């Protein structure tokens, strides 16, 4: 695969500099503004975010202009719309949260852009289209839309298209509802661009993008007796190239790869990925921290990456008994697991992502820290998304958490980490070194330093 533009090609470590930050500066964060998902589209020109209030904001990358060649593409708001509203299920006396759990783009096939957004229960297909022309010179109505008096129409004319200010419209094209009893955690568009899957705690359904009144159940792990339930589905994704293959991860730290050609109901897996537990690190919380919060295929389709509470693992699809690489995200938290269990932080679901060339992976941590791991060189960095380091083109300084007694200058101790500042959602531009990091209600954009 071609390396991302200027990725250091060899031994130079990528240096990140601040590009932009979106969102309110207020210390008081409105719950609805908390970003719950971030996703670049296939070209990287559009960046979508979803929040707890059910809104979707799409940013578009500005084209580089000759007049400002140094100002490499900034992202500005392109469209904002309310994707999901809070619902109340009167029969069950349950509130259905409007929080957007996931957004997934469809590949662009015409002038319009399409994306899927989902909350706990309902998936919606949105069409985002531009309108920059307006028809003028109608026969039956005036410019302001009022009907013309018939006797005033003395001649026929052909309406002409005149340019107007760009208007971006978002309209819901499909609503895929009533197929999930439990909470949807993942959606994934298939490489056939015609189907997609949606996964909740116990089931995975396959949809056709054109059909909203029917979906096919392809995985069902609900036991006949709920008292026997010991495992739930935590994430699922289609293979990027093989449209019959998908994976799903579980709360027990396992991943199952399924082939839809082998059976209609994929309860039997084709491959089962599990790393045997290290008995020396066993604790009461071993199972909880092994729960996988995210699974992502590499762009090549040869590897997949899983995120559990303390680490990121890269798996070769041809090797089921252990991952090929394991990266410790914040191992210093292992000795704090009881406190993290007590305050529920141990259940935080961190996501992870690949860069365009699959050479580097990224995931978030606490205190608004996020981590990048270069696979080849085994170099890792801890960076912080903060307002303090938000000067234009300011280079991000690597951060360090002090794990032993003596704290060096600029280091931060484990006890002074802010566990309310968690970076759960990150995204990497599909081709360039531009990353989007969601820090509560703010979206930070960083790009590679260009000399």
């Amino acid at each position, binding site marked *: 695969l071609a390396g991302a533009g200027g990725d250091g090609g060899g031994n130079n470590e990528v240096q990140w500099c601040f590009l932009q930050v979106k969102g309110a500066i207020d210390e008081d964060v409105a719950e609805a503004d908390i970003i719950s998902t971030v996703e670049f589209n296939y070209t990287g020109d559009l960046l979508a975010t979803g929040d707890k209030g059910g809104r979707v904001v799409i940013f578009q990358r500005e084209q580089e202009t000759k007049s400002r060649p140094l100002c490499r593409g900034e992202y500005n708001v392109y469209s904002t719309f309310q994707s999901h509203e809070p619902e109340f299920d009167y029969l069950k*006396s349950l509130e259905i949260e409007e929080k957007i759990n996931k957004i997934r783009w469809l590949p662009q096939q015409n002038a319009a852009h399409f994306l899927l957004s989902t909350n706990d229960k309902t998936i919606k297909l949105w069409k985002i289209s531009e309108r920059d022309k307006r028809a003028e010179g109608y026969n039956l109505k005036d410019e302001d839309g009022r009907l013309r008096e018939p006797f005033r129409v003395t001649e026929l004319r052909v309406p002409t298209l005149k340019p107007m200010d760009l208007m971006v419209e978002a309209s819901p094209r499909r609503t895929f509802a009533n197929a999930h009893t439990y909470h949807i955690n993942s959606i994934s568009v298939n490489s056939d661009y015609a189907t997609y899957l949606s996964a909740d705690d116990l089931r995975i359904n396959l949809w056709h993008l054109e059909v909203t009144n029917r979906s096919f159940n392809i995985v069902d792990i609900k036991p*006949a007796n709920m008292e026997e339930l*010991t495992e739930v589905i935590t994430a699922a994704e289609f293979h990027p190239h093989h449209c019959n293959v998908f994976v799903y991860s579980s709360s027990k730290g396992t991943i199952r790869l399924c082939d839809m050609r082998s059976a209609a109901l994929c309860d039997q897996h084709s491959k089962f990925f599990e790393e045997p537990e290290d008995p020396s690190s066993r604790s009461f919380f071993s199972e*909880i921290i092994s*729960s996988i919060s995210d699974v992502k295929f590499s762009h090549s389709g040869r590897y997949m990456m899983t995120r559990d509470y303390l680490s990121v693992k890269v798996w070769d699809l041809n090797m089921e008994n252990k991952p090929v690489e394991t990266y410790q995200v914040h191992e210093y938290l292992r000795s704090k697991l009881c406190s993290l269990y*007590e305050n529920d932080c141990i259940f935080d679901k961190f996501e992870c992502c690949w860069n365009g060339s699959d050479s580097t992976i990224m995931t978030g941590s606490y205190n608004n820290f996020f981590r990048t791991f270069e696979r080849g060189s085994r170099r890792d960095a801890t960076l912080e998304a903060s307002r303090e380091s938000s000067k234009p083109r300011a280079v991000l300084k690597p951060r360090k958490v002090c794990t032993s007694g003596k704290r060096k200058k600029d280091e931060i101790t484990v006890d002074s980490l802010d566990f309310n500042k968690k970076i759960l959602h990150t995204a990497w531009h599909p081709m360039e070194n531009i990353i989007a990091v969601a820090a509560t209600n703010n979206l930070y954009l960083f790009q590679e330093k260009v000399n």
Partner: protein
Amino acid sequence: MLGRGLKRKLSDYEENMAGLSSAFDSSRSLPYPLKRQLVLNMCLTKLQTYKMLVEPNLHRSVLIANTVRQIQEEMRQESSQQPVSICPGIAPAAHSYTGMESPGIPLQLPSGVGQQESHCCDLRSAEDPIENSLLIVSDDDMSSAISSILKDLDFVEDISPPTCLVPTGDDQPKFPENTGLKLEDDRQDLKGAECVFGSFEISNSTSYLKDLAIDDIFEDIDTSMYDSDFCCPPLTPPRSPSLATEEPLKTFPSCNSSSANNIQICRTDLSELDHIMEILVGS
């Protein structure tokens, strides 16, 4: 802390828990059984808190339930190897939890702690604040906590058709209604105890149903075989969920209680009633 009296506020309990969990993390001298007990208490507290929610988080509930089961298994193995229990004070305490006997009422944690303290003060010195503030729980309570929360999660009207069939009228009732009273005797077979607890929950909720005046309508129908039938969800035809429950709701106007738990119990009964109606119509 102990001088404040037996009944503690929940906030004190929470503060205590936070202090205990950091003690767990930082102290190497804390004995293993104590650490285990602390984790167990935290798990059960969380499960109880979730039980009070209208819609508990399934993922978290399963993880916590598994942790409890793991600890339970460990403790079982230890007690089977050693006749004397390692941690003094893990005494059968089912009788002190009056909260478990009435459905829909959450476990009264503060009073539970208070009662335990009155038991434990005799056994241990009052100088050990960590031990004294731990909530001592019996094995059956753990099983019942797991069972009941997972059963409650199953009340959710499921869109997919259930996989198992309803037992026919020839089946003998599996669990008599007064099973709950014999629980202390069933301690040996704990797996059996879990199932028993499951039926304990349902049989209570069925008796709730019988308190309703609607009983008169079904006077001539023998519903005893369905009283403790909890293993399989009732078979409902694949129609929209709203239809399935709308009719019973119209018939039972008294089912609009303010407590979310009561609505949950009511709904389980309504689906069972629906099933009974199916049988009637079918015959």
